[in-house]
């Protein structure tokens, strides 16, 4: 078996993984990034909207500061965020945006003079300051007091990921694409790298690393309807969970995006609503101002998603062969705006739905979108439980977002956390030595080899990988979607335990040779079901509503009993995650209060 040595191994080569890699490579260490796909196809590329940073150059962002960004972020998180982390993030974000500009990101810039912008479906004029001409511009996003989101036309994720990968290529960062980590090499105290499966040939390789970073993105694809790329199956989180010692934070905190399109679940950006798009019901009536008079369509995502479901429950949804939905209307923004600033949206409508958004309404419904939960780390990015293991970006629970993250904060988190955690890893590597045990590597590889062999031969059973996945989808859709309740969640946990049993008995229908997708999924699926159990079990135990976690039977946010973070770990041989809790934040700048939107009662501490 091939063994590859490196200082840092990153699992994932999206924005967070590569930003860390650049920092560590820049400090003179060797780095190898693993990626399921060529690095530039990572899900970061799909982010359309932009990155929040309090630069305050745009007239609608005038007077913005990290302090205001901090308040928006903590309120958005429904006080679930670690406030020390949120403070670090808001202070570093403007510098990081400028660094990206230096590296080549074509951010849109301020053009001095009077321009027509849109807010809440109405145009208005605003005059950009002459002294800010040519500085980085920003646009509106939900849940923010100021226009703060830096953007590059309608493809910020693309523009930043391409720049990041260029920078990584310049520094000689090695990317091994079509490579999937299948287990971590560790002794219960220290992480030493990973056993990796080549997705071209099916061969196993061992990567020995002094530091290992999980930057594998979210777990959205444990849901059937998700805006995420199809590779976002939470594999990095499963690897951490399977160590038995690392912990996953707030797995029940799953965000649903208000505007996933029907039927393919492709996201159309929040920028549509930021720029003045409105939500309409079956009567083409704009309903959001009735629920949220002040913010309307621009309330935070969890609120808009809930209000949409609430409104559909009153019988105002549009019936279609693919189920019920509502309409997104951007027709009034005009041809120039739709064809340039919202071009990706225009293309999605034309290419995937066969409609023209200039003249037609876009069918939308709340769809799984973002995973707030992830590998729990401290503020430096070091994972709980295993020395030498780190995590950053969507796969991590750092924890910037608490129970709801704001649009534009996650893309910004990838690069801001990537920079901070990267610097911390470089510091960790300085003068750190460890001993690699050949027996440990051999045993880890033998375990994986044996498991894969049993799946291919069908030694444990002939369960169909696709049937087992469907069963998981069905349960999550009923038990752990936008609205949750104790009865469905209790049923969901039990049903998922049965699916977990079945997942141990998967046998292939094909030969499993080479770049075989059935085998790759069969290897991943038991871990995905364990993540689903973490979501469901965590949601059942959390008897309150906070951010995206909405319990119909416990509608209040309960700061008396639940101002905390769920920590899930999986003990060897267990059939349920073990849960414990820690305070949401030890550093308090902003005591719990009213978010100013979303309604709902609060049980005070």
């Amino acid at each position, binding site marked *: 078996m091939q063994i590859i040595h490196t200082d840092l191994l990153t699992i994932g080569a999206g924005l967070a993984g590569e930003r860390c890699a650049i920092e560590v490579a820049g400090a003179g260490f060797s780095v190898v990034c693993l990626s399921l*796909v*060529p*690095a*530039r*196809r990572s*899900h970061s*590329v*799909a982010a359309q909207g932009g990155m929040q940073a309090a630069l305050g150059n745009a007239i609608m962002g005038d007077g913005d500061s990290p302090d205001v960004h901090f308040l928006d972020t903590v309120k958005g998180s429904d006080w679930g965020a670690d406030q020390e982390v949120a403070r670090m993030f808001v202070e570093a974000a403007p510098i990081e*945006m*400028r*660094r990206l500009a*230096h*590296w*080549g990101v*074509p*951010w*849109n*810039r*301020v*053009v001095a003079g009077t321009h027509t912008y849109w807010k809440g479906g109405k145009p208005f004029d605003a005059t950009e300051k002459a002294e800010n*001409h*040519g*500085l*980085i511009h920003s646009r509106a996003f939900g849940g923010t007091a100021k226009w703060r989101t830096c953007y*590059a036309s309608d*493809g910020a994720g*693309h523009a930043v990921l*391409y720049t990041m*990968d*260029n920078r990584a*290529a*310049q520094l000689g960062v090695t*990317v091994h694409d*079509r490579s999937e980590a299948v287990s971590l090499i560790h002794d219960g105290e220290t992480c030493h790298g990973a056993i990796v499966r080549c997705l*071209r*040939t*099916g061969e196993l390789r061992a990567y020995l690393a002094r530091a290992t970073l999980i930057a594998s993105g979210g777990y959205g694809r444990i849901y059937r309807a998700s805006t995420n*790329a*199809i590779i976002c199956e939470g594999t990095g989180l499963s690897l951490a969970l399977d160590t038995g010692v690392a912990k996953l934070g707030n797995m029940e905190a799953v965000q649903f995006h208000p505007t996933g399109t029907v*039927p*393919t679940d*492709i996201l159309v950006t929040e920028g549509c609503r930021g720029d003045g798009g409105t939500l309409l019901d079956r009567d083409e009536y704009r309903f959001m101002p009735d629920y949220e008079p002040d913010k309307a369509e621009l309330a935070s995502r969890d609120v808009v998603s809930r209000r949409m479901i609430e409104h559909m429950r009153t019988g105002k949804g549009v019936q279609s*062969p693919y189920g019920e939905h509502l309409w997104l209307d951007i027709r009034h923004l005009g041809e120039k705006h739709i064809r340039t600033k919202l071009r*990706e949206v225009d*293309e*999605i409508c034309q*290419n*995937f*739905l*066969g409609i023209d958004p200039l003249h037609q309404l876009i069918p939308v419904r709340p769809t799984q979108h973002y995973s707030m939960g992830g590998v729990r780390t401290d503020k430096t990015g070091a994972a709980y439980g295993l020395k030498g293991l780190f995590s950053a970006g969507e796969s991590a629970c750092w924890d910037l977002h608490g129970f709801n993250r704001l649009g534009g904060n996650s893309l910004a988190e990838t690069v801001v956390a990537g920079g901070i955690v990267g610097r911390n890893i470089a510091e960790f590597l300085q003068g750190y030595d460890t001993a690699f045990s050949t027996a440990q590597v051999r045993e880890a590889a033998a375990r994986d080899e044996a498991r894969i062999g049993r799946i291919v031969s069908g030694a444990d059973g002939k369960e169909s990988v*696709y049937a087992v996945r469907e069963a998981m989808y069905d349960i999550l859709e009923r038990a752990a979607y936008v609205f949750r309740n104790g009865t469905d969640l209790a049923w969901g946990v039990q049903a998922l335990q049965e699916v977990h049993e079945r997942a141990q008995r998967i046998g292939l*229908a*094909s*030969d499993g*040779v*080479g*770049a*075989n*997708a*059935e085998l790759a999924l069969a290897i991943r699926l038991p871990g995905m079901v364990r993540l689903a159990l973490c979501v469901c079990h965590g949601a059942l135990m959390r008897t309150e509503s906070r951010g995206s976690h909405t319990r119909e039977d416990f509608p209040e946010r309960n700061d008396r009993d639940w101002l905390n973070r769920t920590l899930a770990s999986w003990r060897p041989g267990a059939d349920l995650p073990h849960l414990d809790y820690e305070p949401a934040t030890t550093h308090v700048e902003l005591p719990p209060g009213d978010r100013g939107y979303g309604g709902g009662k609060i049980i005070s501490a």
Partner: protein
Amino acid sequence: MQRSLTFNIFRHNPQDPASVPRMDTFRLDETDSMTLFIALHRLREEQDPSLKFDFCCRAGVCGSCAMVINGRPGLACHTKTRDLPAAITLLPLPVFRLVGDLAVDTGTWFRAMYQRTESWIHTRAEFDPAAQEARMENEVANAIYELDRCIECGCCVAACGTANLRPDFLAPAGFIRVARFAADPRDQRTDADFYEIIGSDEGIFGCMGLLACEDVCPKHLPLQNQLGYLRRKMGLTVLKRLLPFGR
């Protein structure tokens, strides 16, 4: 009326010594709004789990799923079956190494391209975390973004006559990358520097001018325009070298 679709799909598994390249036929009933993303996944999950193909974003932004669809390179995820006849032939992209069936190795090809074009900003300026960002005209930012929109799907490479004849050809995706940096005032490379990268038969002068690249580009990049622009620029650079007063 619902159609019955016939898929003729190229099959070969390079990892299986017994595998022989062949075409397999599958049948599938068409449904509303069916794309090749939906159809291929149904074929894999319902008929043949060994079928190999690549998708990632399934939203036309990541470039994973390029293949030859009824003779034309394109993205499978945004190809609607209603726009195709009932008989659909799918082949892997040529030029790139085959991973299996419809999946090809674009990652290795494009990484080599980044190294050849030195696909990054070349500047002597140091980043100063305490300073305001350098100013840029919004029009310039937009112009760079337009050239930066390539998703590296490989369609233009597969459709390129020269790239199919010589594996060392930089191909349209490489030229548009050079054009992107040539348009960026932050990159301090000169025309002479770019000439070193593309001023050869493996570079801009190898293009036969067939221009299929622009026809198949799913992002409608101005490949033809940029090719002409770079050729003129490089031609002038050669002239300057030849003429004594140009030196």
